[in-house]
């Protein structure tokens, strides 16, 4: 479990920029990988094969599924008038998954089974897609009302398809 009791939790602050960044609770190798992907993509608009192989090596089969979500621009950063932010990821089935800005959680079955129950993975494809979209600058932006943000965070919002 690399991201329980994360080092540096209280010292990290959310960026004040519009493009909010999820706090990383990943091992150093994964953080470096995202930095390399970000740098290379900014220079070439491509992710070279060696970094894709590294991504698959670190995150396993969900890497390809996450890249598919990135291709479909499935990650949106929601902002409400209060300033509260959250990520929303549109799954392959069209279901929307609300994820938090400051810690790892996803309501998808894979997160519940692989991460929480089996403790076999760091994250699910939806959270990985958030990291990738932020590294690549491909996160969509959307505004919602405070009430809608509360409903999304609390899990009581209707599931859109």
């Amino acid at each position, binding site marked *: 479990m690399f991201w*329980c009791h994360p080092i540096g939790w209280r010292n990290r602050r959310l960026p004040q920029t519009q493009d909010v960044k999820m706090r990383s609770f990943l091992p150093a190798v994964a953080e470096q990988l995202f930095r390399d992907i970000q740098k290379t993509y900014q220079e070439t608009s491509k992710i070279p094969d060696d970094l894709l192989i590294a991504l698959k090596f670190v995150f396993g089969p969900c890497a390809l599924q996450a890249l598919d979500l990135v291709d479909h621009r499935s990650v949106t950063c929601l902002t409400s008038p209060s300033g509260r932010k959250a990520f929303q990821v549109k799954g392959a089935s069209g279901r929307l998954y609300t994820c938090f800005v400051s810690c790892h959680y996803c309501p998808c079955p894979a997160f519940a089974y692989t991460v929480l*129950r089996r403790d076999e993975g760091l994250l699910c494809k939806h959270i990985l897609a958030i990291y990738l979209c932020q590294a690549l600058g491909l996160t969509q932006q959307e505004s919602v009302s*405070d009430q809608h*943000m509360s409903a999304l965070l609390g899990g009581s919002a209707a599931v859109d398809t």
Partner: protein
Amino acid sequence: MADILTLTLSTLMSEPGLKRSTSPSSSSTLLVGGRGISRSLLLLAAVTAASELRVRVVFFTRTQIQSLPAPLQKRLPNQSPEGLKKITFCYPRTVEELLQQVASLHDSPPPSLIVVDRLEDFLCAPGLHPGERSCAAHLSALLCDTAAFLTQVLEQRPSGSAPCRILASYHSELDPGPAEADDCPTDPVLDVLDRYFQIRCTLDQDRGYGAAAAGLQELWHIYVSGGEATAWEDGPGGAQDWQLLVSPSGSIEFKVVCKHHCRSTHQAHDLSPQ
């Protein structure tokens, strides 16, 4: 250790020795075990935060608080009524209501302390077993994310009431006791809570002869573990053990004990900072 809990315990001390630190520290602390005593500690922490630090507190509990614990009643005459007004009590009946009320905190005056009493009442309710891990993760993540956001809001204000902290209690039915072994069944909900809460304070009741011999009603040992447990230091090397002593009158006293006195009997649970 969490600053507000440290301050709360220091007010219960009969002897000097523990630093009354209120500097921003860990933002999330989980009290594990001690179903009876933990509520008293949470209420004391809420009152301490509201009256001494003069910050807003939101206190979530499923069961109505019919009467204040004895140690709190004794301290109330010394408390400022204005300070106590800073505590808002909320009584969600289900975990869904609790989630919704926590999720709405960003749309109201920001508290500096969010207290959740008896998480097990919400997470271990009958019929909730399927998906209980995911539910515990959702609630924990929402609490942490809310505290992170409210800390940002509070930091932009001149009141100096940042950060926003989380203080919650959980009592597991699968109490491993002090002689916890690797093959003991683990509580799946507690396993998830440990992922999100930075500090765990395990309350372990001493059922030996020592408490009775000292004329105490209850004697509790406090074991601190987590990322910033070492922040709660006192004396050279921070080599202390912590105890809560409950007298027959119901009053609570906090005591710092040199660790080497109890090391032989509590070595298995010795999670205190080295």
